[in-house]
């Protein structure tokens, strides 16, 4: 009894103490201002009410603290950024979040694809170096390495502004509105874009998240075009002249044509101005990247001349075999891997505007590479008796180059046909370049990228099936790109104008620039340097210092 009494007394004391302290605390709290008489509450919109209800039901931090192995709790309406925490999520908040998510998905997609394309530089380096002799390995690798820096610098300074300075309006990447100035001329009553004018040094208004994304993606494309030339002119090209011409190409030649095709320039306006299909259509750059690189390679190759020993007095060609076929084939696989950034990435997004076609684009890319390999292997096996390894690699690349322009517009069977033709075409072209033109191209770059780049551009005008729908229009013309085989001959006309421009304008410009450089600097190393190998004279270090070379008596004597 005593215990019972004591416990209850103690409890009463604690209760009294708590009430006293609580009362004091309440007394210290400033009195809340008198609330005005509540106005009649506006009816809450149904959607907003649903959002608030969903927010109330969203998993709490306590729920999430238990772990979410199934991934069913993580990511809910509670993660939506709200403008007024007290009011909770509104329809406007949800809409903003959806819009930002779309752009974020497209940013990430475009950036990751750009990273893949950047890695293609490693593939190019391996292919080109593997197809050249061991005494020039360091020089060839270094050209592929340094072209990245030369191109990037030139593109940042001016090239990007020329190419994309007037390319505002891309909905996938948030509009790119700072890039709003295209220099145009008025001709025959129509306005034609010639070059962009904003974005120099990525300064001023170009300091923008969307602009940075498109810069990175376009820059790695540009560098791909530049590195094509290094292979064609390998084993006799002066490093200084290579460096200068790469800077000029990254600053002027490439961006100019890329503006005409992709930056709102006159080729892309052929549809809107003259009714030629949807304008020049080059989805990922068979023309813009590969033909520009391949035709520039042809121009420089003509000027720099063939390697010593390539041709006999009767004009017949001698094979000069590369030093590392394993590097060549691994390099080809790296390139094929990077191509999944090249083509599907050219949607510039994975969300909305028809971008779910990325799967079809990736498969078209894969198939064309496959059939290109088959085309080259079978051609060589049947005509020469052996499934030549280097030509097989070139067949894979030829298929990929050819499908680059049409990848966004064609079906899987069409892609397979385009690739197969490319695989055969590259073998025929290599033979013609070497034996008819007497142009020495150690890696076959002119045929892989130049010839098949043109074939890719042409194939858009033939095989585009009219099923793609990138936001309902292409180059500002409503509808889908449709080729001759699917009923639109006018698209083929636009593609032919593009091919003519590549041959007549891009080749000529590249040729003129490099002819001037021939007079100012000179393209070709000395005969002595060429015979001894370019590694020591040009780079100061052998690519493979532990190798011992046999002398080349005939040429050493001549030197």
């Amino acid at each position, binding site marked *: 009894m005593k215990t019972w009494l004591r416990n209850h007394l103690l409890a009463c004391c604690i209760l009294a103490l708590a009430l006293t302290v609580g009362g004091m605390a309440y007394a210290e709290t400033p009195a809340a201002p008198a609330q005005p008489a509540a106005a009649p509450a506006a009816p809450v919109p149904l959607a907003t009410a649903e959002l608030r209800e969903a927010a109330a039901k969203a998993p709490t931090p306590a729920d999430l603290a238990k772990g979410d192995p199934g991934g069913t709790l993580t990511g809910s309406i509670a993660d939506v950024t709200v403008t007024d925490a007290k009011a909770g999520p509104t329809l406007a908040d949800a809409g903003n979040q959806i819009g930002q998510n779309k752009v974020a998905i497209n940013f990430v997609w475009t950036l990751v694809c750009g990273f893949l394309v950047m890695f293609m530089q490693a593939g190019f380096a391996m292919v080109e170096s593997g197809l050249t002799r061991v005494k020039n390995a360091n020089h060839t690798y270094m050209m592929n390495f340094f072209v990245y820096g030369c191109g990037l610098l030139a593109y940042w300074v001016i090239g990007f502004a020329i190419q994309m300075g007037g390319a505002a309006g891309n909905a996938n990447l948030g509009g790119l509105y700072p890039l709003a100035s295209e220099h145009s001329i008025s001709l025959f009553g129509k306005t034609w874009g010639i070059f962009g004018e904003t974005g120099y040094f990525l300064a001023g208004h170009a300091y923008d998240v969307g602009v940075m994304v498109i810069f990175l993606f376009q820059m790695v494309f540009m560098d791909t075009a530049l590195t094509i030339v290094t292979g064609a002119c390998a084993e006799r090209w002066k490093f200084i002249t290579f460096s200068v011409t790469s800077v000029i190409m990254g*600053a002027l030649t490439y961006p100019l044509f890329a503006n005409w095709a992709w930056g709102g320039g006159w080729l892309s306006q052929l549809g809107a101005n003259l009714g030629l299909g949807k304008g020049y259509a080059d989805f990922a750059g068979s023309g813009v990247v590969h033909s520009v690189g391949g035709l520039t390679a042809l121009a420089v190759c003509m000027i720099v001349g063939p390697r010593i020993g390539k041709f006999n*007095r009767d*004009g017949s060609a001698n*094979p000069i075999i590369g030093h590392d076929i394993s590097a060549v084939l691994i390099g080809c696989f790296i390139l094929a891997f990077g191509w999944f950034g090249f083509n599907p990435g050219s949607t510039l997004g994975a969300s909305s505007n028809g971008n779910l076609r990325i799967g079809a684009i990736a498969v078209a890319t894969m198939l064309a590479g496959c059939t290109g390999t088959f085309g080259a292997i079978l051609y060589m096996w049947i005509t020469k008796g052996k499934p030549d390894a280097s030509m097989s690699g070139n067949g894979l690349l030829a298929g990929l180059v050819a499908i680059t322009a049409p990848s966004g517009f064609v079906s899987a069977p069409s892609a397979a046909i385009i690739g197969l033709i490319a695989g055969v075409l590259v073998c025929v072209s290599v033979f013609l370049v070497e034996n008819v033109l007497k142009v020495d191209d150690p890696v076959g770059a002119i045929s892989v990228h130049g010839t098949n780049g043109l074939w890719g551009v042409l194939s858009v005008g033939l095989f585009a099936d009219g099923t793609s729908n990138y936001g309902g229009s292409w180059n500002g013309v409503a509808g889908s790109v449709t080729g001759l085989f699917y009923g639109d001959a006018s698209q083929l*006309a636009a593609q032919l104008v593009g091919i*003519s421009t590549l*041959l007549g304008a891009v*080749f000529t410009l590249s040729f003129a620039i490099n*002819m001037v450089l021939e007079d100012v600097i000179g393209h070709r190393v000395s005969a*002595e340097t060429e015979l001894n190998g370019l590694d020591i004279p040009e780079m100061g270090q052998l690519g493979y210092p532990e190798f011992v070379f046999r002398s080349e008596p005939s040429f050493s004597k001549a030197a």
Partner: protein
Amino acid sequence: MAASKSQGSYFGLFLVGGTVLCGGIAYIASGTGKLLLLVGAAILLVSVVGFLKIKPLEGENPVLPSPESMKWLGAGVALLGWLVTLGGLHLVTSNGGRMVVALLGIGVSLFGILYVLPAAFNKTAFWKKPAATSARAGFSSVAGRATLDSELTAAPTAVGGMK
């Protein structure tokens, strides 16, 4: 002369000049832009003069002089093909007609690139000359070259084997 300090210096100058020049173009509307344009052009000019100065130091290369006018003619024909295509876009109104003119333009350009230019460059090609006629002509055809290359690349022992 292979790669050298002079080459590196003039290339550095070329990059600086080009960058300053582009800065001038970017801000051409302002007085600073015009000044940058002039300074950049001047630096580029110095680099070009430097390149010209060191060019003769390069050892003799095997390429023989070939007719310059024919080379420019070939480039001109290629350009002409493009102009034909452009002209066709405005002179012809039907799509079929434009296609025909574009094909004609492509044909003209290809004639310039695949016929005129190779003819110009190969007219005096060093590999056509007999070995005894000149030092540079000596880099021409060499009997057994294919065999030699095969020897150099076919087997590890021929390459020289690793130590």
